[in-house]
């Protein structure tokens, strides 16, 4: 299983010296599929790789550098449009703050956090500066506005880059209520125009995204972020902060998972931890998803986490009528 090989290569980059050609091809396919090829390319020492692998990793580094440059430019454009400091989340934040989690990281969208009462104003300003709505569907649009923790995604009409404007870190329908005001309050300035979450809140956000929301797709990369981010937090402060956001158990679980997959030593895993590990590693040497049934189970769980049963039934029925099929 190449999910395993990928995790091992990230945890102990020296072990790649033992790979044969087929092992390398499988590792590269799995890393590309999990969008960890850039991270891997920065971790591995070129001297330990066969000649045919070097250009592949060099290409991945070039791509990652470009992504970082583009992401920072988008952040700058958003700050320019808003005329105020922008609080960055996820990949762009890691790169802007020069964190290990940002090294080689794939960055898709620009994610920012703004106070909820300013959402309308921010939307209008971004709209005037060239960001346009992507979702044309009235149901999706209404759903986002009523229940989600972010505006419907917008794409810049000239640069074709997406921005996600969040007002908190979990959907409003989730069982936990993170304290977004506290997050905004404790943000750390990194330049005159850009700020990021405090180290502890960064972990909380990443954990909430991985374990309290979503179906764990792309989870290996998420957990890698968490593994890197955990290096710079104070354990007691993190526990206190996680409790405040209502995700104490999730953070503790993420610590166990990160240690088990990327750290080596950690607290023993529970049965539920093991199920999640099994799901995270569901990737073969062709880059294909495996364990279809388990994946589907997590897909259902992501909806269960997101909304109460009756609302879920109504939502799934509406999406099904519109032709959406999860598998």
């Amino acid at each position, binding site marked *: 299983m190449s999910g395993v090989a990928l995790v091992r290569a990230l945890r102990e980059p020296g072990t790649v010296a033992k790979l044969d*050609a087929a092992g*390398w*091809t499988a590792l*590269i*396919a799995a890393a*590309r*599929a999990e969008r960890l090829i850039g991270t891997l390319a920065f971790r591995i020492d070129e001297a330990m790789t*066969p000649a*045919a*692998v070097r*250009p*592949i990793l060099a*290409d991945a580094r*070039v*791509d990652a550098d*470009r992504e970082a*440059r583009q992401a920072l430019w988008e952040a700058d454009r958003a700050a320019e449009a808003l005329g105020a400091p922008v609080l960055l989340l996820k990949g762009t934040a890691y790169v802007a703050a020069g964190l290990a989690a940002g090294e080689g990281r794939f960055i898709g969208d620009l994610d920012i956090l703004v106070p909820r009462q300013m959402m309308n104003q921010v939307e209008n300003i971004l709209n005037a500066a060239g960001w346009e709505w992507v979702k044309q569907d009235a149901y999706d649009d209404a759903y986002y506005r009523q229940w989600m923790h972010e505006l419907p995604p917008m794409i810049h009409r000239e640069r074709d880059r997406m921005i996600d404007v969040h007002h908190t870190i979990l959907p409003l329908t989730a069982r936990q209520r993170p304290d977004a005001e506290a997050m905004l309050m404790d943000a750390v300035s990194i330049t005159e125009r850009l700020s990021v979450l405090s180290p502890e809140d960064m972990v909380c956000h990443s954990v909430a995204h991985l374990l309290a929301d979503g179906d764990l797709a792309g989870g290996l990369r998420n957990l890698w972020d968490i593994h890197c981010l955990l290096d710079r937090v104070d354990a007691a402060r993190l526990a206190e902060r996680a409790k405040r956001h209502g995700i104490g158990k999730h953070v503790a679980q993420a610590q166990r998972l990160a240690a088990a997959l990327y750290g080596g030593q950690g607290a023993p895993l529970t049965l539920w931890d093991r199920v999640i590990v099994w799901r995270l590693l569901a990737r073969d040497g*062709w*880059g*294909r998803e495996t364990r279809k049934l388990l994946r589907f189970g997590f897909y259902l769980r992501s909806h269960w986490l997101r909304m109460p049963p009756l609302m879920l039934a109504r939502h799934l029925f509406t999406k099904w009528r519109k032709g959406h099929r999860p598998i």
Partner: protein
Amino acid sequence: MRHQLSLKIGPASFRIGSAWREPIELLTKLYADYPQTSDEVSDFTVRLEPTSLLRRWVRPSIFITGDHGLADAAPMSLSHGLLAAEMGMNLQMALGWRRHLLLHASSVEKDGRALVMTGESGSGKSTLAAQLGERGWRLMGDEFALLDLVTGAVFPFPRLVSLKNGAIDVIAGEAPAERMGPLLAGTAKGDIRHLAPRADAVTRMEEGVRPALLLFPRFGHAEAVRLVGQGEVFMRLTQASTNYVALGEAGFGALTRFVQDVPARAIDFPSGEAAIALVERLWEELG
């Protein structure tokens, strides 16, 4: 995956996996003279998967993907499996190749210099390259010309030539049957037949050459030749490149140099014969 093949085309190596035997069998036959690379690390993985569990056996339907893929790629019938594999390889190059500036163009070589032809699908660039490749030129590729970011040389990507509709009979009349693939009728682009390039195209597939002439061919019009200014060439080539943006400054540098160094002409022609005569004449005039 159940059936697989690893091979090298130009500078890029591919591992192609398929849920079905047929596409791999056809590839193995048509790519018999290319380096087989099952013992080497592949640059790209291509996968031909069933669109659903059922579609593996019942009215088999192929979803083309791999390291790089498009979520909304149209499914293809298994009878077009060879085309699916070719599209899968093109997809990896178009979305993932970073070691050259990729131009959506055909190219041929003579006297150690390259003629590059670019244009929309249907412009005749592919047919023209295939014909020249049968008549004393070295075929470098019908889909992508690879522009070296440092030296400015053009490198070959000589995969199978994809002949469409009217071009099929034209080339079938010149090339031996053993280099032709099966007729794939009724694809999204009409009828398609693949042509394996001549041996010299394969044995010399790692040799790059200096580009000497750029043409914008257009089939189906009265014969005409028009000079194309550098500004227009630059704009058209940025649109014809799939990785120009991804390469950033290196891509800009390579394209600027190409545009400044290589003379460009737009040519219209009513027939293949007229096109070949026109190309040979323009080539002579270069001196």
